[in-house]
């Protein structure tokens, strides 16, 4: 496989073949022409010799009638234009001239056949036993030059076509060889590009792996920081209440129950936090049951109020009557978590609105939206700072938090999202910067009969 060798050899061979063909055809034409002339001359000479041999006696005895009969016999050959028989006295004994043909020349000595202007003429001696008795002139028309050229033209045309075909074949082969070379180059380039791509992919995979590892480490830091902070807060609450309790006891005052209860509550919250972490880490199975969300929220009002603090007004609009099926404890955690988020979004205070409703969805704009059907909705709306688009899209990602390090795990909304999806529901976030945030949880209605 040496394309250069093919490129250099094939056109030379084709050129040689074509040149050879053309030279051969020219040689053939020349040979044909020569052969034609010789044959025409020989034919005319033979005819003249036959006539000369036939008319010797007529010449000897001056028998013009017999001589004319022999000459007339030549009329049968349409190629013969003129013939004449001369005695030794140079007088014509007999002659024949086709109408329209050129005149018969004055007699001259015998001479060989000559081809002039598509006519061959010849003068032969009439000899009997070595006795010269006269001469015979004969002129015959040959095939016209035009006809001969046409004949040769066809030959030359055929040969030229052959030569052209050879050249075209060679050209096609050259083109093919070049294209093959180009294709091979392309294939090589593609292969190189592919290798580069593979390399880049490997590098990218390695970089992603490294990034994921660093993100994991960062998330772990956030998580442990957040947990430590939460526990610190709870420990501070328990410790503070216990200190107050001790101080009151030393002062001999009896109104210590409130502090003891607060400390206990702090301890309970620490326990709840622990169970949440456990739930997150161990993927504790849900314990779903029939739940009336309105009743559940109504029962949590005090807890929520306590959780969000006095700066936040709480409104409720609990119109949902239908039942849903979910793990009530997890639902409470979710509501509390969302309420805390709302509070954090309203550092200057604001309104937290909790609303439930029975809804019917008729259409499904996209596959990510809930399919048509009957649902119960729970909307938790604040009047806080809101989220921009980027934050909103990342809000449910694990470990994503807008809170300063140590204050949030980034797991709250992620866990709620997972829990809602696990319960066959949907969670939507409606938020714009400065206009507050509304988190809506949709869960399918169920028949109440089971409970």
């Amino acid at each position, binding site marked *: 496989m040496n394309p250069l060798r093919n490129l250099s050899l094939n056109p030379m061979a084709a050129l040689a073949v074509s040149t050879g063909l053309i030279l051969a055809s020219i040689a053939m034409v020349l040979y044909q022409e020569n052969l034609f002339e010789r044959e025409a001359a020989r034919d005319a000479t033979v005819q003249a010799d036959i006539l000369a041999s036939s008319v*010797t006696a007529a010449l000897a*005895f001056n028998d013009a009638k017999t001589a004319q009969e022999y000459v007339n016999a030549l009329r049968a050959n349409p190629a013969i234009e003129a013939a004449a028989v001369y005695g030794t006295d140079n007088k014509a004994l007999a002659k024949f001239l086709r109408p329209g043909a050129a005149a018969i020349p004055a007699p001259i000595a015998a001479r060989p056949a000559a081809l002039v202007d598509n006519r061959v003429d010849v003068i032969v001696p009439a000899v009997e036993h070595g006795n010269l008795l006269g001469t015979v002139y004969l002129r015959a028309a040959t095939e016209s030059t035009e006809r001969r050229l046409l004949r040769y033209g066809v030959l030359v045309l055929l040969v030229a076509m052959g030569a052209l075909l050879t050249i075209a074949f060679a050209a096609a082969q050259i083109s093919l060889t070049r294209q093959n070379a180009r294709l091979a180059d392309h294939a090589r380039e593609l292969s190189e590009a592919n290798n580069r791509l593979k390399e880049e992919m490997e590098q990218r995979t390695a970089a992603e792996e490294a990034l994921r590892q660093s993100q994991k480490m960062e998330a772990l830091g956030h998580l442990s920081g957040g947990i430590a902070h939460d526990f610190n807060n709870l420990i501070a609450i328990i410790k503070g209440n216990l200190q107050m309790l001790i101080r009151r006891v030393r002062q001999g005052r009896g109104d210590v129950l409130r502090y003891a209860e607060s400390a206990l509550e702090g301890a309970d919250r620490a326990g709840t936090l622990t169970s949440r972490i456990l739930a997150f880490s161990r993927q504790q199975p849900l314990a779903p049951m029939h739940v009336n969300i309105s009743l559940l929220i109504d029962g949590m009002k005090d807890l929520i109020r306590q959780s969000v603090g006095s700066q936040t007004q709480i409104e409720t609009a609990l119109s949902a009557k239908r039942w849903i099926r979910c793990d009530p404890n997890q639902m409470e955690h979710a509501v509390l978590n969302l309420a805390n988020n709302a509070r954090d979004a309203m550092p200057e205070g604001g309104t937290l609105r909790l609303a439930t409703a029975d809804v019917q969805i008729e259409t499904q704009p996209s596959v990510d939206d809930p399919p048509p059907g009957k649902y119960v909705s729970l909307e938790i709306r604040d009047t806080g700072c809101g989220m921009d688009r980027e934050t909103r899209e990342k809000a449910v990602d694990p470990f994503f938090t807008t809170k300063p390090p140590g204050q949030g795990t980034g797991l709250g909304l992620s866990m709620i999202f997972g829990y809602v999806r696990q319960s066959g529901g949907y969670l939507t976030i409606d938020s714009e910067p400065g206009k507050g945030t509304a988190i809506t949880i949709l869960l399918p209605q169920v028949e109440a009969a089971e409970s």
Partner: protein
Amino acid sequence: MARRSTTLFVCGALLLAAAPAAAGPTASVADIKAAYLLKFGPFIEWKQDAPAPSFPICVVGENEVSKELDREAAGQKVNDAPVEIRHLSSGQAAAGCRILYFAQQAADNNFPSVLTVTDTGETPRGVISFVIEHNHVRFDVNVQAASKAGLAISAKLLGLAHAVEGAP
């Protein structure tokens, strides 16, 4: 050969100037007969072909033809041999002659290897005998006599004959 032919051709043209005029009113029958005697040679084959330095044409008797022959024969050649005219008293001395012309009545026509030519129309006639037809000089050929004399007559000559006699 070509040169010699040309020379012969020119001489012949001068000497035979009268011969082609046979058809014309001034044509002499004797001229034509004399010319014919000089022309038979090429169309005859003598089977006993003795090498001869000349081509002897023998004449018995005398008439206008023999006189004309004497004049025309000078310098003529037949079959590449110069023509020699021999005047004989009778046919008995004809040995060696190629052609024997009887200017008078022939006593005999049986001469081996001699082409006898008679002119009187009386028997015995020669292998060739002159006749006059429509004022044209013609000749009859007797092939039987020719065969007897050991002669072969060219078909070309027979083609020109007024009559061919003795054919089998």
